């Protein structure tokens, strides 16, 4: 195996290791944890809310900070799951099952410790994974031209639908609506304006910040306000003995290794990612355990496996984005949006044109993971305090941060109005049981998909057979077709439905 990537990794550490970058990595991790620890707020709204804070930074620094925010949010979600049994995000749902039971038995410290160390291990492996598999994949993607990219996006969107929660048909429509919204603005080929309604702010396309903050951040608040007053009783038992015992290590290290493996692979699959990885790891742990009945009653393996898996997957899901320019889930779509704002088009070219950016980001992932362990273990007391802060004081502050964030990046009332419009739209979707995450994916991919379809059609003079006559695009489409067939098969369908209700 070619170990040249290790050299690149060293360069990456040099690029990422400047004091400025380290500082913003730390700030990102802290802010991410701070927001992510709040019950009911997952990584998507967290990233959306904190995105404006990264706009003023340089490309590498802002990406490092964003990645830090993402890991922080994810880690904060685990803390909340274990201590209050309220997952902030789907990938922590599984952690709740055994983690909170452990906490009830007074072993919150061990659960948090195992989650942190397991995640860190998974993060280390995930980083090496990206460093090793990124370059070959990017080299492969160099052969791609428009038809291949179009086929790849079809495959990515199809698998994203399969992995989405809830109704398949609705997920498909959400993607289509996202694609349509993505076309708002001036058509690059003809200069014609589409769906801009004469609003100047829409000429360059719709900003995705108002959409994401409205649909995820603000709708989340409204949802929480509609529910009964949350009796959030943080664990009254003191969190001490954070370092798991030797026995805990013995019981959990195998689960961590298995979880890391599962997560690393599922992270790469388009549409996969942290949520799927955590569910899969939990199922596997239950299957291999000698005594499966312990699960649900505070089995440490049930915390270690999924936590390692979701972190590994969070890491490796950057691979398709950084090498193919294909975001595999809504969070990666956000990352892609952030990269484009910085003037970087994610894809195979990034590694050639901006190696410092690619390798610096990979290195920063490892640094971020290390920082998380360092800041989380000693600072757990602060997070617990934050958990017990009443929601009536919290939500106005969150609204304020969102609004200042949007206003400070645009200085325009129109963007605030758009945010309000998308809040209403997101609320409607919530009531009608439509999961909005695929919409973001479509929104980001809309213009790219259209562009690649157009170019392919110009190449072939309008003959759609071009997608089937080229081997790579044909195999990608064949894979997409297989995925579609799998959904239609009743057997797989029930497995999928079960996979998401095991909570």
């Amino acid at each position, binding site marked *: 195996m070619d170990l040249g990537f290790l050299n690149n990794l060293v360069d990456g550490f040099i690029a990422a290791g400047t004091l400025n970058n380290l500082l913003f990595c730390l700030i990102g991790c802290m802010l991410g944890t701070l927001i992510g620890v709040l019950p009911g707020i997952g990584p998507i709204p967290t990233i959306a809310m904190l995105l404006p804070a990264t706009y*003023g930074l340089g490309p590498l620094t802002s990406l490092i900070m964003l990645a830090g925010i993402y890991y922080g949010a994810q880690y904060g979600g685990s803390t909340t799951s274990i201590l209050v049994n309220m997952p902030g995000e789907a990938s922590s749902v599984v952690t709740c099952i055994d983690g909170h039971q452990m906490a009830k038995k007074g072993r919150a410290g061990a659960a948090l410790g195992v989650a942190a160390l397991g995640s860190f291990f998974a993060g280390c492996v995930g980083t090496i994974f990206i460093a090793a598999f990124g370059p070959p994949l990017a080299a492969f993607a160099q052969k791609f031209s428009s038809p291949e990219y179009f086929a790849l996006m079809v495959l990515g969107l199809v698998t994203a639908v399969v992995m989405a929660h809830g109704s398949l*048909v*609705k997920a*498909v*429509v959400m993607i*289509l*609506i996202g*694609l*349509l919204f993505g*076309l708002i603005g001036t*058509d690059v*080929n*003809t200069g*014609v304006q*589409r*769906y801009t*309604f004469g609003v100047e702010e829409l000429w360059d396309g719709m900003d995705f910040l108002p959409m994401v903050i409205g649909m995820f951040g*603000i709708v989340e*608040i*409204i949802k929480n*306000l*509609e529910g009964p007053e949350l009796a959030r009783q943080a664990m009254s038992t003191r969190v001490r003995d954070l370092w798991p015992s030797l026995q805990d290590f013995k019981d959990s290290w195998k689960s961590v290794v298995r979880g890391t493996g599962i997560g690393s692979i599922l992270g790469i699959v388009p549409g996969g990612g942290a949520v799927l990885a955590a569910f899969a790891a939990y199922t596997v742990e239950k299957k291999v355990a000698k005594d499966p009945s312990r699960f649900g009653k505070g089995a440490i393996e049930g915390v270690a496996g999924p936590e390692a898996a979701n972190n590994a997957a969070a890491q490796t899901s950057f691979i398709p984005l950084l090498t193919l320019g294909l975001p595999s889930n809504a969070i990666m779509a956000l990352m892609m949006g952030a990269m484009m704002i910085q003037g970087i088009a994610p894809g195979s070219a990034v590694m050639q044109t901006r190696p410092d950016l690619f390798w610096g980001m990979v290195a920063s992932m490892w640094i971020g993971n290390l920082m998380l362990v360092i800041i989380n273990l000693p600072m757990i007391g602060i997070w617990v305090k934050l958990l017990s802060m009443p929601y*009536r*004081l919290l*939500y*106005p*502050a969150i*609204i*304020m941060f*969102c*609004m*200042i964030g949007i*206003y*400070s990046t645009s*200085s325009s*009332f129109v*963007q*605030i*109005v758009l*945010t*309000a419009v998308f*809040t*209403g739209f997101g*609320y*409607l979707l919530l*009531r*009608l*049981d*439509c999961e909005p995450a695929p919409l973001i994916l479509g929104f980001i991919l809309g213009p790219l*998909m*259209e562009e690649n*379809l*157009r170019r392919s*059609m*110009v190449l*072939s*003079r*309008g*003959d*759609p057979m071009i997608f089937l006559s080229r081997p790579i695009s044909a195999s990608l489409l064949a894979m997409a077709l297989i995925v579609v067939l799998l959904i239609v098969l009743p057997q797989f369908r029930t497995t999928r439905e079960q996979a998401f209700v095991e909570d």
Partner: protein
Amino acid sequence: MIKVKSPRDFGAGLLFIVIGLGGFWFGRNLSVGVASRMGPGYFPMLLSGLIVAMGLLVAIKSLVFDGPSIEKPQFRPLFFVMLSMLSFGYLIERIGLALSVVTMIIIATFARRAKFKAIETIALAVGLAVFAVFVFIYGLGQSLPAWWGK
């Protein structure tokens, strides 16, 4: 008499149809072109058509299969949260960050169905306003007006 068996899906289907038709209507002046030379309207029309078709599918399915009813929406949180957001956007150009934050927070607290606690609300609003001015204007140096007129 046709009966809606799954109101949530029926609503979703209708919403999709409306969005798809909107795509057609507002894109009616875009030239479609042909496949080899796609006009600006080609992809939007394709998407709108698919959205309408899928919307019909969802709506028809909802007449056949049973499903959950739509939860009764509560307008109070939605209304006050949106009002507080819009008030901020409208006021910041006119009265500056400090006062628009105070207004926004006070409106936002009405989103909860609870007794109005004047002292707590005002303390929260003023506290956050001071925080925002110091962190965003002095700390991060963002070009937001702190007070009216500048």
